[in-house]
């Protein structure tokens, strides 16, 4: 009957509205649930998620050695040309010439944090760091050189 359907409709509408109000009422009465963090105040204890992609870095070990072979895979993988690898040829102990990285230039101002360079790297020389405070007074300061001064490729990395 029509009138029965009508009453059922009203009742189910009231029930669904009450369900919604119950949830927001629960959040209102339980301030523990608040997920916002008061950022500048909690800087000391702030823990960013490991998977947060803030910038590309090249980790160096204690001997100032990295794992970059200068293969330019990351440069080729980058969709908008944020990476420029300048290579050089080094002569090793046996007198052979070998390609190596001279300057790994990274444009943080253009980077979209797509992670493709990290995936393309065959030796895991570059990773995504979870830093996020990138504000600088000059745009040129966002163009970074990832390999340290005087750094070498780690022994055994091909």
């Amino acid at each position, binding site marked *: 009957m029509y009138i029965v359907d009508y009453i059922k409709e*009203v009742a189910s509408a009231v029930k669904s*509205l009450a369900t*919604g*109000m119950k*949830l*927001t*009422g629960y*959040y*209102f009465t339980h*301030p523990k*649930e*608040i*997920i*916002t963090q*008061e950022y500048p105040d909690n800087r000391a204890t702030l823990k960013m998620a490991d998977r947060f992609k803030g910038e590309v870095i090249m980790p160096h070990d204690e001997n100032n050695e990295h794992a970059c072979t200068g293969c330019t895979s990351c440069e080729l993988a980058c969709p908008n040309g944020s990476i420029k690898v300048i290579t050089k040829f080094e002569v090793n102990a046996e007198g052979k010439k070998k390609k190596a990285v001279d300057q790994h230039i990274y444009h943080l101002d253009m980077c979209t944090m797509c992670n493709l360079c990290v995936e393309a790297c065959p030796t895991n020389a570059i990773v995504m760091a979870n830093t996020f405070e990138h504000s600088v007074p000059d745009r040129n300061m966002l163009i970074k050189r990832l390999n340290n001064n005087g750094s070498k490729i780690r022994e055994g990395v091909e």
Partner: protein
Amino acid sequence: MISFEHITKWLQAWLNAHMSPILVLAVETVLIVILAIALFAVLGLVLVIMERRVAAFMQIRMGPNRVGPWGLLQSTADTVKLIMKESIVPTHADKFLFNLAPFIVMIAAMLILAPVNFAQRFHIWDLNIGILFITSISSISVIGILMGGWASSNKYSLLGAMRSGAQIVSYELSAGLSILTIIVLCGSLKVSDIIASQETGWWIFKGHIPAIVAFVIYLIAVTAETNRAPFDLAEAESELTAGFHSEYSGMRFALFFLAEYINIFIVCAVGATLFLGGWMPFHIGHMQGFNHVMDYIPSSIWFFGKTFFLIFVIMWFRWTFPRLRIDQLLNLEWKYLLPISMVNLLVMTVVAIYHLHF
């Protein structure tokens, strides 16, 4: 115990002892104007900060908490900003109507204040058709909204104003019918009589199910009448930027914004008066002891407590429900609220005639 009643009586006596009757009237008028404006300013500041904090907590956020203790001065800072901002009038706007519109909305909001009883025997003008006065004046604010929307010469403003007009006109019906339901019970339009009739218990408890249905319908209808979410089609941010007040800035915008919050306060005050007994303390029948204990809480606290509870419920609606489409909005009114409130009024009339209520 000091109450508002004592203060007004003392002031009246003091003025009468020192001045001629005409001067007394003039001084009292000025005092009332100052008090009304002060109430508006304080209410605007309090309700805005309350809304923002309630919204934040319901959305698992913190809300403004930097300016002053617990962020309480945030709305004051916002108002200072609005006062200092330039109030721009669009080139093609109808300048006279554009400037007039916010004042019409404010005046309508101010006039409704007259019959509201804020505490025991503390009111501006307790006229014998108080509730009729409130319902009729509240229809005037739609003129201000239409005027502002039309004079802005902006598509969004006009669309918002038209939607607002359709909405207010249709929802006033069910709001009026649910008010009538209580008028049928107490048999008077005078606000103080309505409150006095609830001495043995508030109508929402005494009036059985019809009173509760009327209360729910009243809450829904006034939410729509004050253009608040989930019925905020008139200023749907995602569709019409800000609806009828898109072109307003600075203090003119602040007047519209203030009027919105004042209207919420007033409809909640009327709802508290009709269904929750206004300033009447919580009484159960003729239980003398219990009623006497409740009387120790001042009547102004009862009134403002109930009003702010209703305001909280309306804010709760706003931050829970999604916005309705215009067809859903009109469906809700004409196919659901209006028939239900008509049947409800009929049931309540039977209850009142046979004295089936407590």
